[in-house]
């Protein structure tokens, strides 16, 4: 089934590049929001520790954001290089959405990022805070547009098809397509949680080394608040998205559940805790199930049923093992994070949050949990759209470019090499930064261009110089 043709190689390439990319903007979304909150608290309370935590994570942000930008650039061209038929047919719908993303988000992020990273000594404090907020807003607007595009591919609406090309009929229906609100909420929750667990892990790590480190306490405490508040939200949002998928993409949900055939009448849907799905024979091997639980969360009733996989032609269902395992990894990690949030509340209530070293060790270990759950969830939703690029309307096999297999193979190899180098270096530098404890009067990102010795000429220079004088 898996031959090395341009189609499969292009799929592998897109999965690899988007899977690599998605971690970084998600990190940026959550981290930008965290930085905005920190700077706001600093301005409000005047406590240096907030600025220290801000500067500590700003250095991380500079690296993460940069990788997000350059790997994102790839995505905006990859539609054309590898999926030109898809691009030709969906360009009139998806093109403007991505165009709006650039116009309303990317430029705003890029325009104020320089000030955010290097401008703390160059502009007024409040103006700097405004820059942080605008970068944060940019990351969120960007997510709003890209998820609208992605959701449209999952649950297309507001279009007509003219000579095989999707043309817009109602932009309101295109943007606010049926799965969009749920997917957006779930993705935002994932971004906030991923960053909360990363920040919590670093805070916990430095607390374990020095219980008195104020900055580490602030990180740990704030992260645990976020973990406790956002995990319940995330579970509710995930449930809502699942119900939405059940309505619009039934075979995706059936594959997530490993539900090959309808249960006996009245037995309800069991939940398959574990099993080995077999796509060829259309059964699960070695499955461990609990009766009725599937009905409870899928249909919110005791004996409700869903359409099983055997109700669909074999050519119309996604790769079941990928969805089945991906979904279990995501939910398992989600429940783990939920438990950590609950325990943190209990410890906080007992006044032991900063003393429970066993708990801090667990939090260090679960630092990557949010990102792993995010990737697993992304695989479930994207692989679950297969075998279509535009769900039910345009098959992935009909979306591919007329390019040489050798070209795609070569570029896939080149991507693998370059991305591995970038990832290895990024991890090295990030871990090196994380290994340093946050200190009082933490320095910002390196290569801060300092003010020149001379006085700059011109009226604007006079204004800026006098502004500097008044601070």
């Amino acid at each position: 089934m898996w031959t090395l043709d341009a189609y499969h190689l292009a799929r592998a390439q897109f999965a690899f590049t988007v899977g690599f990319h998605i971690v970084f903007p998600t990190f940026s979304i959550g981290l930008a929001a965290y930085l905005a909150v920190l700077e706001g608290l600093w301005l409000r309370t005047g406590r240096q520790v907030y600025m220290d935590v801000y500067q500590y994570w700003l250095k991380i942000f500079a690296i993460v954001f940069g990788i997000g930008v350059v790997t994102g650039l790839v995505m905006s061209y990859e539609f054309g290089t590898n999926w030109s038929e898809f691009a030709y047919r969906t360009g009139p719908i998806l093109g403007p959405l991505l165009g709006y993303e650039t116009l309303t988000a990317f430029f705003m992020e890029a325009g104020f990022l320089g000030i955010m990273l290097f401008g703390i000594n160059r502009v007024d404090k409040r103006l700097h805070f405004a820059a942080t907020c605008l970068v944060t807003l940019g990351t969120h607007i960007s997510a709003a547009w890209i998820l609208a595009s992605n959701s449209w591919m999952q649950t297309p609406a507001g279009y007509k098809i003219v000579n095989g090309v999707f043309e817009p009929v109602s932009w309101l229906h295109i943007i606010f397509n049926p799965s969009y609100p749920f997917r957006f909420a779930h993705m935002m929750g994932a971004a906030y949680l991923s960053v909360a667990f990363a920040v919590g892990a670093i805070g916990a790590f430095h607390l374990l080394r020095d219980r008195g480190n104020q900055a580490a306490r602030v990180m740990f405490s704030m992260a645990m608040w976020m973990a406790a508040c956002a995990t319940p939200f995330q579970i509710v949002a995930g449930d809502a998205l699942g119900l939405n998928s059940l309505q619009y993409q039934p075979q995706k949900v059936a594959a997530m559940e490993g539900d090959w055939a309808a249960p006996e009448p009245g037995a309800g849907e069991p939940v398959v805790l574990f099993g080995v799905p077999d796509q060829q024979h259309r059964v699960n091997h070695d499955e461990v199930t609990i009766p009725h639980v599937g009905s409870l969360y899928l249909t919110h009733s005791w004996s409700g049923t869903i359409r099983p996989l055997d109700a669909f032609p074999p050519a119309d269902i996604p790769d079941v093992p990928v969805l089945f395992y991906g979904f279990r990894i995501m939910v398992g990690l989600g429940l783990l994070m939920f438990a950590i949030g609950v325990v943190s509340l209990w410890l906080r209530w007992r006044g032991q949050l900063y003393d429970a070293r066993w708990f801090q060790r667990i939090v260090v270990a679960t630092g990557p949990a949010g990102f792993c759950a995010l990737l697993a969830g992304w695989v479930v939703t994207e692989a679950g759209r297969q075998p279509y690029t535009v769900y039910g309307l345009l098959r992935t096999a009909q979306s591919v470019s007329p390019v040489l297999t050798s070209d795609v193979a070569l570029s896939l190899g080149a991507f693998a090499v370059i991305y591995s180098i970038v990832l290895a270096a990024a991890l090295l530098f990030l871990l090196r930064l994380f290994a340093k404890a946050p200190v009082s009067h933490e320095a910002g990102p390196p290569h801060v261009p300092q003010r020149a010795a001379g006085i700059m000429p011109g009226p604007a220079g006079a204004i800026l110089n006098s502004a500097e004088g008044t601070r």
Partner: protein
Amino acid sequence: MSTVLPIIWAGLLAFAVFAYIVLDGFDLGVGILFLVEHDKQDRDVMVTTVAPVWDGNETWLVLGGGGLFAAFPMAYSIILPALYPLMIGMLLALILRGVAFEFRFQATSYGRFWWDIAFCGGSIVATFCQGLILGGLIHGIHVDGHAYAGGPPPWLNGFAMLCGIALVVGYALLGACWLIWRTNGRLQARCRRRAEWFAAIMLGLIGIVSLWTPLLHPEFTRRWFAWPGMALTSPVPLLVAVVAWLFWRALRKDHEVMPLLYVQAWFLLCFVGLGISFYPYIIPPSVTIWQAAAPVGSLDFLLVGAIVMLPIILTYMAYSYWTFVHSKVEPGTQYH
């Protein structure tokens, strides 16, 4: 309306691509100049001059790609597969040099050596690929229906290679002129000298490319060398000469900002010349902008956003630049 909208969009896209060329051009050029600038302190200063602005510069490339996808999906779906290896090569090179901005400051001295190579090599490869893309597009892409028809790679020929080399020299020139403006002392003096050389070479290359282009398609020849087209086309080379004279005068008189502006004017003239050759095609000589255009519903929806957002974008981009360019970057003071 449907005849005007594609023209408006072609203009907007041309603007985005031009903005990309003259803005990212100078920061790619700074990377190219790593070839001849080896001193660590000078390199730090060079990177620091572009660190706060390169990301915004590169965003114009996203707008160019996204805009082509939105407004001319057919052209997007033909050009990108046709120039597949160049697109991938450019993107990978931009990744390497993009991360090198941060990584070279994080790395130890040994690691920095490699990230400097990544920054310089990435800048050169990305630029060369962009030149080849341009050359391939001018040379001609075979089209079948709404798709790329295959055949010999349109970029594997002397003309495209020449465009690639010309663009590397052109960006190096932009980079040198940017550094004349943004730096002081010996680095600035060296850039001034180099700018003269690069400018001389670039003028020569522009001349060769300009004479070669009309010979590629009869359509181009008619436009450039026959009445009434000549009335429109003949001022372009004249203006190139005028700007060349102004450029050398500015350089000799130690102007700091003007050389950069004159080089950008050069790029603008080349761009206008290209526009004269191309119009009304987006992929000469097979696909016109009307054939490639998205339906009206897509064009006018995004046009509203462009009209509202572009002035705002240009305003805060200018503000962001102003925050960082109002004083020179001094050696040794760039660390906190």
